[in-house]
């Protein structure tokens, strides 16, 4: 088994004419790599009607509806995260309830609000209560604000995780930009924070560093928007001399443990 815990799909509403081909290529490349579950989100209209990282309520709803439809079109292969914008607290909480009822298995928070902001507390509390993880977009060592997002780094996500010890958080794409070494200084002693290996970055020493810092038990395999780099990291992990048991933990067992019980069967 191989679970990609960080996938994305596109919809007709996205500002790209090849959205169907990109979705199809994800599934095809996933088949070649051996992905048995894509856990995915759709970030609003991907900028068409509201910004990717600051989606409007209407775009959030439309994207989540499309995600539910994709899950139904690909049962037991595609699974959904509910995307919300924490600036609309009541809407976010209602949308999470709606999406979980529709079969989604996690919550995706991108960069609409800093991770340590109190506005995220009710969402984290709901996630803990419903037993679903939160995948949180993270900029590995954000030294300044970049346009288009209110990105968080590991310190801020760790602060949220500390306030909600019963919630499970996934720190997104350790290879996804910024300084992953900064993140490693933060995450060692945050037991409810798992590391997602996705991102286009493939620095030598990064995988060794993550393993040394949090151990096999808190690593989750994912690809995000570059399946080739996901495949590369999997190849490298398997060549590092990890036991078959450890590789299985990263490939799927850790994910099975933090998402709702039995959801990948």
């Amino acid at each position, binding site marked *: 088994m191989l679970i990609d815990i960080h996938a994305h799909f596109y919809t007709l509403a996205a500002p790209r004419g090849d959205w169907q081909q990109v979705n199809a290529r994800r599934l095809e*490349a996933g088949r070649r790599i051996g992905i048995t579950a894509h856990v995915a989100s759709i970030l609003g209209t991907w900028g068409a009607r509201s910004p990717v990282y600051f989606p409007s309520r209407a775009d959030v709803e439309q994207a989540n509806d499309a995600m539910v439809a994709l899950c139904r079109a690909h049962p037991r292969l595609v699974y959904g995260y509910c995307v919300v914008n924490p600036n609309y607290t009541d809407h976010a909480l209602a949308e999470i309830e709606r999406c979980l009822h529709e079969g989604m298995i996690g919550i995706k928070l991108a960069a609409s609000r800093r991770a340590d902001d109190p506005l995220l507390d009710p969402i984290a509390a709901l996630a803990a209560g419903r037993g679903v993880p939160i995948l949180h977009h993270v900029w590995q060592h954000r030294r300044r604000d970049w346009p288009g997002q209110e990105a968080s780094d590991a310190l801020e996500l760790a602060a949220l995780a500390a306030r909600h010890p019963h919630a499970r958080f996934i720190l997104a794409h350790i290879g996804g930009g910024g300084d992953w070494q900064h993140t490693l200084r933060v995450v060692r002693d945050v037991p409810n924070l798992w590391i997602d290996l996705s991102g286009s970055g493939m*620095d030598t020493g990064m995988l060794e560093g993550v393993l040394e810092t949090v151990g096999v038990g808190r690593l989750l395999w994912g690809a995000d928007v570059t399946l*080739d780099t996901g495949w590369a990291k999997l190849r490298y992990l398997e060549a590092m001399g990890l036991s078959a048991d450890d590789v299985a933990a990263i490939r799927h067992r850790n994910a099975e443990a933090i998402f709702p019980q039995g959801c990948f069967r």
Partner: protein
Amino acid sequence: MIVDVSTFVGPYPFRLVPGATAEELLRQLDRLRIDHAWVGHLAAPWHRDPRPANTELLRLLSPHAPRLVPVPAVHPGLPGWEADLAAARDAGAPAVRVYPGQQGLEPAGREVQALVLAAADRRLPIILTERFEDARQAHPLDVAPPLPASALRQLARVSPDARLLVTHAGRAVIEEVHFGLTPTEATTLLWEISWIWGPPEDDLALLLETVGDRRFTFGTGMPLRIGDGAVAKLDLLDALADRLARLTGGNLREWLQDPR
């Protein structure tokens, strides 16, 4: 025969890069079934004078010839740089490296153009590194800008005999350069694949169709990056054996031997 045109040994100024030795590079080449590697010195781009690093590079690689092939650096802003070019040629280097951004030179300025001309006269390719790091993770003191497409276009027009191998470039730069040149000018360039995205965007597959599969060659960026990255791109390319052979060494050999 698989040739990796984009590898290094030696220390990197901005972080500790594990495995930056010739011995570890050989171990990775074995694991990835790569036959030969063109190797630069990882600190040389930031040295005021690359000559000592070139000497060190030859010393580090000499026990491992012919599998590890040295690619010395030339700083065309320094007096006597022509001697460094000649020394590289005498040492059997298949190419030389130049780092305009790191060396404080205009990327297509007078000095770099002079080097391109001189190297063309000697039929020696030049390797240009479009970038070393994703800008988002660069050290605060790592301020050299990426090589702009405009500079690459200018350099490609310096001489019909020039050969420019560009590493670590992505789709946007490649397209802007390739379609901004005449078909003849475009044959001056060979692009290394390590920074080009695979699926689901499939930039590499697209470029092989639009730019043509004779304009690309294999490189990993080791030890800055794990070598599996470039290998994985080929794994997922769904390419026939003859195309793979071109990408992993055939195009490079043909480009080097092109008599113009």
